């Protein structure tokens, strides 16, 4: 009984922590899709690159905060540059956009392999690694940190989206991009900025995930895929959807991994299928 109880608690904590990582990817993915109609395959690339940049920065300066901020800045810059140079010419044309972002993913995966090799990198930020024993349960500190970090980020993003002007424009645009254009706002700039912010978010996600997942070349594709699952489940273009969707998917995924490991690979698909059957617009009911 005790063992199962421990397993359940661990699952919940790990599940929530995993959910926060998923949220960091899915949020940007969902909003970029809702706003720009771009199914951004490159998002996984930013997650992966963020992880590698953070790992490298940490190697040099041993400072977690710098690693995170560096990764975020890198993601933002790269996102802005890529969007401005390559995506702008094909705005509105869904297929070329999709193909381009796919290209980003492929090129970045290969670049990572070339620059850093196939061996995964890990680092452990001091102070929040290790575990603590609470009520007879061994709790990994980093997981708890992830949960708080995720919630804090979610709050910050929520405030930006609801209180600042740019945030409101982004949210409105994510639901109805034509209306935003009609309001006379420079849509191109909004797109570039959103892409940059979304990419920064993904990069931070990757960075913050390193102590748990490590930085490896498969990160791009694997977590992109999870990001897609969450986006479908949560609803495209919806911030709340991506948050609650990540929690749902994260917890289900972790529970299955611990209790029914043979079906783990099926669970994502089943969740997607069930959501599509019951509520095609995802949790938030939005198509984006």
């Amino acid at each position, binding site marked *: 009984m005790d063992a199962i109880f421990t397993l359940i608690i661990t699952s919940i904590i790990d599940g929530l922590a995993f959910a926060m990582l998923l949220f960091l990817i899915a949020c940007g993915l969902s909003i970029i899709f809702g706003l720009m109609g771009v199914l951004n395959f490159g998002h996984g690339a930013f997650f992966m690159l963020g992880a590698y940049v953070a790992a490298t920065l940490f190697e040099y300066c041993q400072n977690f905060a710098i690693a995170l901020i560096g990764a975020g800045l890198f993601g933002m810059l790269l996102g802005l540059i890529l969007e401005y140079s390559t995506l702008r010419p094909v705005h509105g044309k869904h297929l070329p956009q999709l193909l381009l972002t796919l290209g980003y993913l492929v090129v970045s995966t290969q670049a990572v392999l070339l620059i850093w090799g196939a061996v995964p990198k890990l680092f452990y930020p001091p102070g929040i690694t290790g575990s603590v024993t609470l009520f007879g349960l061994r709790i990994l500190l980093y997981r708890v940190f992830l949960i708080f970090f995720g919630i804090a980020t979610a709050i910050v993003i929520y405030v930006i989206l609801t209180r600042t002007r740019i945030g409101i424009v982004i949210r409105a645009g994510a639901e109805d991009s034509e209306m935003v254009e009609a309001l006379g706002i420079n849509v191109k700039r909004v797109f570039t900025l959103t892409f940059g912010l979304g990419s920064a978010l993904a990069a931070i996600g990757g960075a913050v995930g390193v102590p748990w997942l490590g930085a490896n070349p498969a990160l791009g594709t694997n977590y992109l895929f999870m990001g897609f699952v969450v986006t479908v489940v949560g609803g495209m273009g919806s911030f709340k959807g991506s948050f609650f969707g990540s929690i749902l998917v994260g917890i289900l995924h972790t529970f299955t991994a611990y209790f029914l490991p043979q079906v783990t690979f099926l669970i994502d*698909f089943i969740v997607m299928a069930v959501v599509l059957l019951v509520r095609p617009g995802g949790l938030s009911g939005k198509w984006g």
Partner: protein
Amino acid sequence: MGMNGMAKFSPRLFLDFLSTRKISLTILTILFFFPLLTPSRYHVTVLTEIFVLALFAISYDLLLGYTGIVSFGHSAFFGIGAYVFSILLRNQTPFPVAILATIFSGVLLGLAMGTFLTRAKGMTFAMVTISFAEIVRLLFERSRELTGGETGLFVPRPLFIKSIWFTYFGLVICALLIVLLCVVIVRESTRKDGINRVKASYFIFLGVFLALLIYMVPQKLSPLLEGSYIIVSTTNVYFLALMSFITLYFIAKRILNSPIGRILVAIRENEDRMEMLGYNVFKYKLVSMILSGIYASIAGALYAIFLLIVTPTFLEATFTINALVHCVMGGVGTLIGPVIGAGIMTIFQRIVSSYIGRLWMLVLGIMYIVIVLLLPYGIVGTWKLKGASVKKTIRRLIRSKTMFSRHKQTQKD
């Protein structure tokens, strides 16, 4: 065209038709003679692989280019087709039955994936297909008894591949093509509008080709016919791939020019309008998926015959991405584009990877991005758009410089 909707068949019309398709006929002949023309078996296998991948790329284009459906689950068709075929073949099922079963699996899978279309639109559908393909792959990887797990299954060679009679069959077709080609040449050269520079160069080229044939064929023929088992098999697989590819290609062309083909194109162009015109768009998308599934499964079965082994690699997303790249490079929505894309990419891959090895994928990715940006319609697509003006310029250049048609020009003045 004749009356009653059926073209009256007459030798003359047929030859007229062939004359307009001189270039295609020539290419076809060259392709059929290829095993006899090259010294190396390796080249033959490269071409075989190109035909199979081109068939797969066509199946992808049917979905993407002609109906506008983005799917990342295509490798599922490829792999399942290959596995179904291989498992049946291992159980001594006759070849035709195995092929029919493969086609049937393609239909079923197409229906299955098509049902997602009711609930998932556009990009959501794309994401679901990724998930689906991954699941199928993992399923096949894990069931050792049925599918041999990670190591896969060995595919026995179908009997006719081992048989010299099939090679004879291929050679008969070669002979037929040569005869047709000669007849066309004779007809063309005796036509009344004389010879201009283009035609002259074509005839010269043909002459060289025929000379080459006369020189090389007898040399290659005897080792082939008495030949080792391996040479015969390689040639037979080549012929099989080539014949399947050509047949399926022309069938696809026929379908795309039929009423339903036009409907699919219109759906790609404006789905909502089609709904409002009374077309049940979902049903047609389903048809497209089934057709695409059939083609992809057959490609998978052919690939299994080619490699003599089927593994879960067949189900990896790499194949889907390759098909996508072939289509983008060649031109989405043209049927010949993906074929050309497949040809170029495969040859490129073989040549380049021997020089730069692991950098290959990076170069591919960059090339791919460049093409999407600069040639969004692909090679064939851009040619079709701008081709008319390019052709005009070429014609003008030829006309102004040709010796043969000076006579004609003075006549015009």
